């Protein structure tokens, strides 16, 4: 184990944390501030990933595209398509409350996953899509990783500022009010359905962007990436543990959970090699247990929802 | 010896102390009224008795036994019954089931008790199969009261039982209170219809900002000009 290796590993982890942070921020808009129980994160993540992959990858015979278009177009496309698909879904589903919405969105994500697996002409089916370009991908390993990290950091920062300002603004207050009591909010003239939809679409667009970042990082995507355990539930754990309703909490939660997820393996690797396979099961156990411990001691999340005190009178 | 004796109770929901030393006693067969401005800590004082609060100082003795820190279900078994100010019915259960839950701890045949409650609140008879959550505000108050009357407690804590009730029913609640007292039950009552309540109670307390402000017989408090102006609406 040496410094360069560790640094490389850290950079890699940071990139993934950034991608998850985007997902968690998107979820925070939906759940933390608007109370929308979206349990179909994986679906929007996948839509973003596949859209950007199709737009930017090299042409392939058996599926749609690739169109070899510029990267920025891919990212914008990922957000737009994710938002465009979120719109009708939200239109139909947001009238369901709480857990009904959760299961409806899980269902939609499952349907999206099955479509991606099955409709090969569109997505390459179970073979997935390869040949997705990565910005600065031709640099040597370390430089290219660092360059990508820089891009991810900039995007996460942008997203953070964007979301943070919306939430500090009256818009955020209104969304939280709708979350707390929709009847009263309606009586105060707020258009519940339209506002919810706005938040849902906004959050989904961020999830789409995260998908795009993911696919360009891996240079390929297959349907296995849409595993709900990782692309949905893990994000939920990140948000709740970081502190739902708090953007910094969302980012921090992404970091903590992914570090637990990833580093737990280093821990179980210390077990004797005959137990190498069992060690992986133990690892899953440790992940579950650590989650319990964190919930035990920080049940409100690491950074709980703040009461945003409006700026003082001028 | 008083039936209920709260001495210098301090405590709150989180870390902050809402109650800063509240002392209240209720003797046997006595109606005691608490009045005070909104947010004074009246409801909090009742919750303190019922173990729904972090009590950090003072003591609560009931019937010779220190019940500070007991779990609510144990306190009910000991013979205290409580009607909270808000959230005081099971919304997703029918009116009748609410009464059944009221008599949860009672063994044996309860039909006489149901009979009595429906007699007191005839409006509820027609609504017995309705969910309590679908009732009007006033009807819910009746359900809450009826639920409490299903038990035979030694002490009844009522938090604004008349809020939202029509004048007719308000009068009736006060009448029930007196009847129950006459049957040997002590009552601790929080009221914003302060004048009416003070007029028939045995003793009264005025709470403000989490502490005792005044106490005395109902008549004396009514007569106190400061009390009248500051707390009873002139």
């Amino acid at each position, binding site marked *: 184990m040496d410094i360069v290796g560790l640094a490389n590993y850290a950079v890699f982890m940071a990139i993934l944390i950034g991608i998850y942070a985007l997902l968690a921020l998107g979820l925070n808009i939906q759940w933390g501030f608007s109370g929308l129980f979206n349990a179909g994160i994986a679906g929007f993540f996948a839509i973003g990933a596949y859209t950007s992959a199709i737009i930017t990858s090299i042409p392939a015979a058996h599926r749609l595209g690739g169109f070899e278009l510029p990267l920025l177009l891919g990212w914008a496309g990922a957000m737009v398509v994710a938002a465009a698909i979120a719109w009708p879904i939200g239109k139909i589903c947001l009238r369901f409350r709480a857990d009904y919405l959760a299961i409806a969105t899980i269902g939609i994500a499952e349907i999206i996953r099955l479509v991606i697996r099955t409709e090969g002409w569109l997505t390459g089916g179970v073979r997935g899509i390869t040949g997705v370009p990565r910005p600065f991908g031709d640099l040597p390993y370390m430089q290219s990783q660092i360059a990508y990290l820089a891009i991810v950091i900039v995007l996460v920062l942008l997203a953070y500022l964007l979301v943070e300002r919306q939430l500090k603004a009256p818009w955020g*207050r209104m969304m939280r009010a709708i979350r707390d009591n929709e009847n009263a909010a309606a009586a105060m003239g707020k258009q519940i359905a339209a506002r919810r939809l706005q938040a849902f679409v906004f959050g989904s667009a961020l999830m789409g962007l995260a998908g795009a970042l993911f696919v360009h990082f891996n240079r390929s995507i297959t349907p296995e990436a849409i595993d709900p355990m990782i692309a949905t539930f893990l994000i939920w754990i990140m948000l709740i543990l970081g502190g739902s309703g708090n953007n910094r909490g969302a980012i921090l939660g992404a970091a903590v959970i992914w570090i637990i997820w990833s580093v737990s393996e280093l821990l179980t690797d210390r077990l004797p090699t005959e137990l190498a396979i069992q060690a992986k099961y133990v690892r899953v156990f440790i992940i579950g247990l650590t989650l319990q411990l964190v919930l035990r001691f920080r049940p409100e999340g690491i950074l709980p929802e703040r009461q945003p005190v409006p700026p003082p009178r001028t | 010896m008083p039936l209920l004796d709260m001495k210098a109770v301090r405590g709150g929901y989180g870390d902050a102390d809402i109650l800063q030393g509240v002392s209240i006693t209720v003797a046997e067969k006595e109606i005691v009224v608490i009045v005070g401005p909104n947010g004074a800590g009246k409801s909090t004082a009742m919750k303190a008795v019922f173990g729904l609060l972090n009590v950090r100082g003072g003591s609560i003795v009931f019937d010779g036994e220190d019940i500070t820190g007991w779990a609510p279900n144990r306190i009910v078994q000991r013979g205290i019954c409580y009607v909270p100010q808000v959230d005081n019915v099971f919304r997703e259960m029918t009116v009748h089931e609410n009464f059944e839950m009221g008599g949860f701890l009672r063994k044996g045949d309860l039909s006489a008790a149901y009979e009595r409650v429906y007699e007191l609140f005839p409006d509820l008879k027609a609504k017995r199969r309705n969910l309590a959550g679908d009732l009007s505000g006033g009807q819910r108050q009746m359900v809450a009261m009826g639920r409490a009357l299903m038990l035979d407690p030694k002490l009844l804590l009522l938090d604004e039982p008349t809020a*939202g009730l029509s004048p007719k029913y308000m009068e009736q609640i006060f009448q029930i209170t007196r009847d129950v007292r006459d049957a040997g039950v002590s009552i601790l009552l929080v009221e914003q219809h302060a004048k009416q309540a003070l007029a028939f109670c045995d003793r009264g307390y005025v709470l403000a900002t989490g502490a005792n402000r005044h106490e005395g017989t109902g008549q004396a408090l009514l007569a106190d000009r400061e009390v009248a102006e500051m707390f009873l609406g002139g």
Partner: protein
Amino acid sequence: MLEVDGLVKAFGGFRAVDGCTLRVNKGEILGLIGPNGAGKTTLFNLIAGALQPSGGTIRFLGEDVTPLSTDALFHKGLVRTFQIPHEFHRLTALENLMMVPPGQPGENLFANWLAWGKVQRVEDEVRRKAEDTLAFLELSHVAHERAGNLSGGQKKLLELGRTMMTDAKLVLLDEPAAGVNRTLLRKLEEKILILNRERGYTFILIEHDMEMIEKLCHPVVCMAEGKVLIEGDFHTVRSDPRVLEAYLGETPAAIERNEFEHDPKVEELREQELHKEDL
């Protein structure tokens, strides 16, 4: 201003509002009384668009608003409070009020980026207004408390406070006095009168507090079993035998405050008090 015609609301087989007809003129404070379960709150829910009627029509400012939703009605100038407080429990008391004013530029997603200055200006105004309202309601000390943590009465006040945050034409108040301290209530009555006289608000007030009805309301309407039983001035309504029977109970005198004020024992004590002070 508001015309309700033959309004019906049935829950299953039960008609909570059963052919209710009502007129409210501009500038009135209409008092709505009636036994528990008479259908008063349900009527409010229908007028405010929170429930859809099973029959009948509602006209507001000359326009048929029967099918409109709550938020659309709000923008036409109709504001209501809830009998059981509907506070935004995770917002502070101050935020509960600040969220009310309609058309805040900061509620637009893009304005927060393109016109931040304006958003800030409006925000300051709204904040000032909310703080003043809290001060009036004696809630300043809990301005930054989560509304869910307020006491029962404080929540009711907050409910009322929301109606003061916007320019309304018609305000529906559902038992604003229940659980509110009487001393404060007297102040609220003043405020309602001021809003009515100076700002031209029209009110419909559901109350079981006869004192308040007497002081504020004309005309008074008594509902029973989903229908209007009688309409008239306070004294006519109060002395109607049907109202006495169904609503006030057999001994209406008992609830009048005069009974206590003229209670000889109390008078006597009061005299003594006065003497004490003199000494």
